[in-house]
């Protein structure tokens, strides 16, 4: 076989009755490992008493090549043939020795068991995790309230600069996007509502539809969802990265309380800013609705405002406003809680940030449902 000059790793077999001489040719390096592996797999040692690897004509040899030779040697020996090397130079012999020393049983990744059991086990684990998360979150919520209480009793402990900074980041900087989304949703709501109400000849009630739904529910829910996505996630990622870099531990050793320094400014910022953002959202939603009412129904702005006065009472406005700080508190606490739960790696920061958004939105919607029931029971 004239394979000289060709790239690869291969064996040439020379045999007599009992001995098989395998001449290794070419470069036995990791790049040719696949070919080398296959040529070794083709060697049949049944009935041989001894196998000799002749390395005299080998090109390069690296750890992978040496490993393949070593593995073949081990395998031939278990099949009853004595396998040896000849012709290895000093460096190659050292390498073969090192590889032989490195041969030990591989530790596999834990095997997957019965698939049904795996599913059941995973369900159990998830339930347990949910339970633990609920417990820890409640504890964290308590800690935040305690810190909040202490700060109210001793207002000088409040981190004013940090709080104002977060008010700007989470509140002021969110105004454009909250305004835009609310305006568009207000317009869509009015447009769709007008289409449906026209069937009953009640287009004028589009105003009531937009006003009541926006002030009571949609405005504040939209804001909460936006803030959870924008700021809840930011809180989790900021605190999480600090946790990874041991900044939180450093803070504790310096006698600083992370709940006071990191969590409270964020919580206060959202409690203060959520009602303002909710107000802006409601205003922009009503404006969007007003634009559609003007274009679609030809109702003048003066008329629109007059209809708004007629449609709304104090409680329609107040039920929306009263929910805002509660939502702000929940989103901030969940964001900070997930940030504090980060452990070790960059991946964990990502997981916790996602969790903060999902849990934030979920909690807001659940609490909103409770508010609805409460307001209905109270008859407001």
């Amino acid at each position: 076989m004239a394979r000289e000059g060709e790239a690869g790793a291969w064996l040439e077999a020379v045999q007599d009755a009992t001995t098989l001489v395998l001449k290794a040719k070419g470069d036995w390096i990791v790049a040719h490992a696949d070919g080398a592996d296959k040529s070794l797999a083709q060697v049949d040692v049944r009935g041989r008493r001894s196998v000799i690897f002749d390395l005299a004509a080998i090109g390069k040899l690296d750890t992978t090549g040496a490993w393949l030779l070593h593995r073949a040697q081990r395998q031939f020996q278990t099949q009853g043939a004595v396998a040896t090397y000849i012709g290895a130079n000093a460096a190659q012999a050292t390498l073969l020795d090192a590889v032989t020393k490195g041969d030990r049983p591989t530790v596999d990744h834990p095997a997957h068991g019965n698939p049904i059991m795996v599913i059941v086990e995973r369900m159990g684990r998830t339930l347990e995790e949910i339970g633990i998360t609920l417990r820890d979150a409640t504890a964290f919520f308590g800690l935040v309230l305690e810190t909040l209480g202490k700060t109210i009793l001793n207002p000088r402990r409040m981190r004013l600069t940090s709080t104002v900074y977060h008010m700007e980041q989470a509140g002021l900087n969110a105004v454009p996007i909250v305004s835009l989304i609310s305006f568009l949703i207000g317009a869509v709501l009015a447009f769709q509502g007008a289409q449906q109400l026209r069937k009953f000849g009640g287009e004028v009630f589009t105003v009531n539809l937009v006003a009541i739904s926006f002030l009571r529910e949609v405005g504040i829910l939209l804001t909460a969802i936006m803030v959870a996505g924008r700021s809840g996630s930011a809180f989790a990622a900021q605190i999480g990265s600090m946790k990874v870099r041991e900044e939180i531990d450093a803070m504790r050793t310096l006698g600083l309380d992370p709940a006071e320094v990191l969590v409270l400014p964020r919580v206060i910022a959202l409690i203060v800013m959520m009602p303002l953002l909710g107000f802006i959202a409601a205003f922009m939603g009503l404006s969007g609705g007003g634009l559609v009412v003007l274009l679609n129904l030809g109702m003048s702005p003066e008329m629109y405002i007059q209809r708004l006065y007629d449609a709304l009472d104090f409680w329609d406005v107040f039920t929306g406003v009263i929910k805002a700080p509660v939502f702000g508190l929940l989103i901030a606490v969940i964001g900070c809680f997930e940030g504090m739960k980060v452990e070790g790696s960059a991946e964990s920061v990502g997981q916790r940030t996602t969790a903060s958004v999902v849990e934030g939105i979920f909690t807001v919607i659940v609490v909103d449902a409770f508010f609805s029931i409460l307001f209905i029971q109270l008859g407001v």
Partner: protein
Amino acid sequence: MTGDAIISVRDLKTQFGDQVIHEHLDLDIYAGEVLGIVGGSGTGKSVLLRTILGLNPPVAGSIEIFGKLRSQMTPEDAHAVERRWGVLFQDGALFSSLTVTQNIQVPLKEHLKLPVQLMNEIAALKIALVGLPAEAGPKYPSELSGGMRKRAGLARALALDPEIVFLDEPTAGLDPIGASAFDELIKNLQATLGLTVFMVTHDLDSLYAICDRIAVLADKRVIVTGPISEMLKQEQPWIREYFHGPRGRAAMAAKSAPPRS
């Protein structure tokens, strides 16, 4: 010890903003040697390493790697070069979402097409070669100690059997026993695999124990290169302070004492 220069840096200039890090820097790395880079903090040792690796574009000068100028390399050439070197970053820089075994297999999967069984065996072998227990394979980097992460990082750097490995402060942050063991490991691997080693270090013991040649970075360039015996004769104040200071003397004494087992 010395063969041909496999990496030559000529008249290199790097700068960040207005701050010039290197100027007129020349350096050769020869096949089969262990080259230690020393220099005070902020002299740009790590920047030099990153520049040679191509992570940091130089402002001027040329870098020739395996006979090819970095500036004239096509992406294919660069890809081929990446197969021939391995890099150990300071804290291992293991991918945190992958296990140690998977980390070692990343370069294998990227550059080659091998059967899964063989890749698992190669990973297990590399784990053994760097002196990690076999149980470390299925673990995630966050479950390992700092010293183990460095060994795992070295195993990944060695995955493709490179001709040259770059080590960024391999013994920093290790306890003295761990640091000596790591020196020993690099020495053994270098002897076994015929590696060329480019090592940025602050560790005088490492310099004495394993470096064939030392390059000193100061005044934005390599002011002197040579074996440790030559360093001891240098009159330049920083080099004198470095090798004849209390720590330098201690390392020298350790070297002249009977070798560690």
